[in-house]
């Protein structure tokens, strides 16, 4: 469009305009209704993208401004309270808004989303944007709520005072959407407006004119130089700015606060002139709900009940669909096996690909259910209250209150739990939370615990009543939590050390969650999981299959070895046992035997450890193959017998209660879950953190197992 200007002074007709895609940015405070508006404007024409090199996600969609114009690219930015960036996502959003982002074109129009029921605070960010002189249209969201609370907003007056077009919208009912598109289209064609800066004190103003050499055009540049945290790079400028700051500091110690106060003063004036509030003198609904939800005693009780419900859902209700998915893929693998000739290709298809896809899809029920809850909790405003209630406790470990829900969810499964850490804004807090999430003893460890307990601790009681098995499982959970606390503390005091960002959290008004938004969020999460994590899980699954399947054993009719979800009958297990013992995994098991012997493990257990990197519960099927027992309904009991009878070369039993305990500790602390690795890769957008996680958890697991086994022996246990 810029090329078109010098050629003609006429108004540019849309069809004459060069077919350049317009870029429109959607920005505003958190909880201002940005997501609802984005969904209303783009519908399903949206996708999630990552900003290059960082973990921050942006949603990009297509918005048809009018029938004549090609759809504009609408970028949904992270919620911001201010342009003064405190965190990475704020920094990125600011760069995009100011046209300083390298990969995203400077927005042609910024739609600033303003919550009608909370004008003053929302206007702060708007004021800062007005100062930049970027083309702006204001969308007043939740206009129906403002009307209901007897807030009379004079749109014309407001628009005149702000100097930009103001459009009231109700995104849920698609009201004002057309008017908003018209306003944006109008701004696209009109010349840039002058930047608007609040008037400061005479002293500050004179410094500004000094720095801008009296040129009004440069006032914003001078303003940024004077009040930003850093000094400008150019040496002469640097000195000038430094001197100006010193002079101001001499007059007023808090000179840096002046623009903030000036902005709020200006905003108060604008709002007073355009808005009338009929006070009804009643406590708002939010106040009344808060009296219960954040109550000293009731609050924690309600939080406990809510979390119990969430936990119950992902722990047990997701089980049925997960089992169903498992069965479907086992049946599918069987069908393929019967219809295709036996061979490497069939094995790859059944045990590598089908099992891998099944393994990916098995996570979907948990992810969908957890995110259903999280969307509802977030949209309703409850999530902020949960963080408020838990902050003190979480802070003891150096984490944010918002880490509570993701960590608790991780007891069911770390994958959705890690995805849920998205609600934590501070990147370092978020990574610390992700790093300790796998220590929450997840449901995949339970089959391992129960097998070990069934084999070596069953029927034993402590003090005559409590079963030893239950105590051991409880101990595992507590050990996981303790290790998580210690690791979090260490991480937050070393590599993730940062001054805690000021904890000023908005407790948004309670709102009934919008069904459309929740559905959108679920859809987004599902696609992201399948596309980004699913592919990695599938790849690792095939790799692990290859480790077990190659090199091929000489036995002609060797049936396939086992992976996560496949099952197999008794026949052929002899061949499988040979196959797995001669495979790469089997050789690796032997190779690592010297390393794992101090933990009490032999090479057969080593094979189990290697294969269980796919998923922890895989060790059961692997051990079944190694010990040559079938995998029928009586699988567990025959496996238990085989384990009890397994002998070392010198005739001593391979498995003792102490070995079992050592193995349980290892399984608790090692990151044997490719899905977790894949999701951490996805959520941190690099291989650095997932690899670090695997490594440090492995070291921890090794040391803890070593202490368990050797310490146990010293104490005379066996």
């Amino acid at each position, binding site marked *: 469009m810029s090329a078109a200007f010098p050629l003609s002074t006429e108004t540019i007709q849309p069809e004459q305009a060069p077919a350049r895609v317009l870029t429109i940015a959607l920005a505003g405070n958190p909880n201002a209704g940005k997501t609802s508006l984005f969904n209303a404007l783009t519908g399903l024409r949206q996708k999630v993208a990552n900003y290059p090199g960082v973990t921050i996600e942006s949603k990009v969609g297509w918005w048809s401004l009018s029938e004549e114009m090609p759809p504009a690219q609408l970028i949904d930015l992270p919620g911001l309270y201010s342009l003064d960036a405190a965190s990475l996502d704020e920094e990125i959003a600011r760069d995009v808004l100011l046209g300083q982002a390298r990969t995203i074109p400077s927005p042609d129009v910024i739609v600033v989303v303003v919550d009608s029921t909370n004008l003053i605070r929302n206007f702060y960010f708007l004021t800062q944007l007005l100062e930049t002189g970027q083309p702006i249209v204001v969308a007043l969201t939740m206009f129906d709520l403002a009307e209901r609370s007897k807030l009379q907003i004079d749109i014309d007056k407001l628009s005149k005072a702000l100097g930009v077009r103001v459009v009231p919208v109700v995104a849920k009912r698609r009201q004002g959407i057309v008017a908003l598109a018209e306003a944006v289209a109008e701004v696209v064609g009109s010349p840039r407006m002058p930047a608007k800066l609040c008037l400061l004190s005479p002293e500050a103003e004179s410094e500004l004119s000094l720095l801008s050499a009296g040129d009004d055009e440069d006032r914003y540049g001078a303003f940024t130089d004077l009040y930003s945290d850093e000094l400008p790079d150019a040496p002469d400028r640097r000195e000038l700015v430094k001197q100006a700051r010193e002079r101001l500091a001499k007059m007023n110690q808090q000179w840096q606060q002046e623009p903030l106060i000036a902005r709020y003063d200006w905003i108060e004036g604008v709002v007073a002139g355009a808005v009338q509030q009929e006070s009804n003198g009643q406590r708002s609904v*939010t106040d009344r709900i808060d009296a219960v939800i954040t109550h000293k005693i009731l609050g924690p009780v309600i939080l406990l009940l809510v979390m119990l419900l969430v936990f119950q859902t992902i722990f047990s209700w997701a089980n049925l669909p997960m089992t169903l998915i498992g069965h479907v893929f086992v049946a599918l693998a069987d069908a393929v096996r019967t219809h295709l000739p036996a061979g490497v290709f069939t094995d790859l298809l059944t045990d590598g690909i089908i099992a891998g896809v099944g393994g990916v899809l098995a996570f979907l029920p948990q992810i969908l259910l957890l995110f259903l809850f999280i969307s509802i909790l977030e949209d309703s405003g409850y999530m*902020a209250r949960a963080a408020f209630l838990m902050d003190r406790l979480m802070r003891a470990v150096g984490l944010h209150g918002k880490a509570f829900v993701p960590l608790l969810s991780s007891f069911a499964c770390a994958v959705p739990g890690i995805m849920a850490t998205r609600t934590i804004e501070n990147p370092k807090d978020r990574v610390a939370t992700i790093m300790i999430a796998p220590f929450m003893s997840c449901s995949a460890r339970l089959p391992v615990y129960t097998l070990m307990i069934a084999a070596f601790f069953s029927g034993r009681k402590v003090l005559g009543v409590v079963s030893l098995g239950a105590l051991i499982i409880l101990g595992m959970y507590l050990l996981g939590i303790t290790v998580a606390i210690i690791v979090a503390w260490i991480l937050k005091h070393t590599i993730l050390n940062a001054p805690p960002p000021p904890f*000023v959290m908005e407790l948004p008004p309670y709102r009934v969650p919008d069904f459309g938004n929740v559905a959108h969020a679920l859809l987004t999460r599902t696609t992201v999981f399948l596309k980004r994590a699913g592919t990695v899980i599938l790849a690792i699954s095939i790799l692990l299959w290859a480790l077990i399947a190659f090199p091929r054993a000489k036995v002609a009719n060797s049936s396939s070895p086992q992976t996560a979800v496949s099952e197999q009958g008794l026949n052929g297990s002899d061949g499988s046992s040979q196959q797995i013992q001669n495979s790469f995994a089997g050789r690796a098991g032997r190779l690592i035997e010297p390393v794992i012997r101090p933990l009490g493990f032999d090479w057969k257990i080593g094979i189990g450890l290697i294969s269980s990197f796919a998923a922890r519960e895989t060790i059961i099927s692997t051990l079944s193959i190694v010990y040559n027992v079938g995998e029928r309904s009586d699988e567990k009991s025959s496996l238990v017998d085989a384990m009890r009878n397994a002998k070392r070369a010198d005739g001593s039993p391979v498995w003792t209660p102490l070995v079992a305990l050592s193995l349980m500790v290892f399984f608790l602390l090692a990151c044997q879950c490719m899905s977790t690795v894949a999701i951490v890769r996805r959520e941190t957008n690099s291989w650095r953190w997932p690899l670090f996680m695997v490594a440090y958890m492995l070291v921890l697991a090794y040391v803890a197992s070593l202490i368990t086994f050797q310490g146990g022996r010293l104490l005379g246990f066996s």
Partner: protein
Amino acid sequence: MRKNDKQANPEPNESGSLDTLPSGLAARVVNVQGSTAIARRLMEMGIVPGAVIKVVRAAPLGDPIQVCLRDCQLALRRAEARAITVLVGI
């Protein structure tokens, strides 16, 4: 609020930090101290000199606190609340 003024412990026109303000009592922000980053974040959220602020209640473990400002609810840790000087009796 007028009623409260007479009953509350702090005398009218007494200033103190926000974390010592009894809950339910409205006060006016006089000054925001603390590091630049903290003061800025607090002020961006609307806690500027002149604003009316009220402590609603403290979290179960006494920290953070819930405050009400221009009909908005905010949660602050006590460490941040200490940086805010308020004047009772408005």
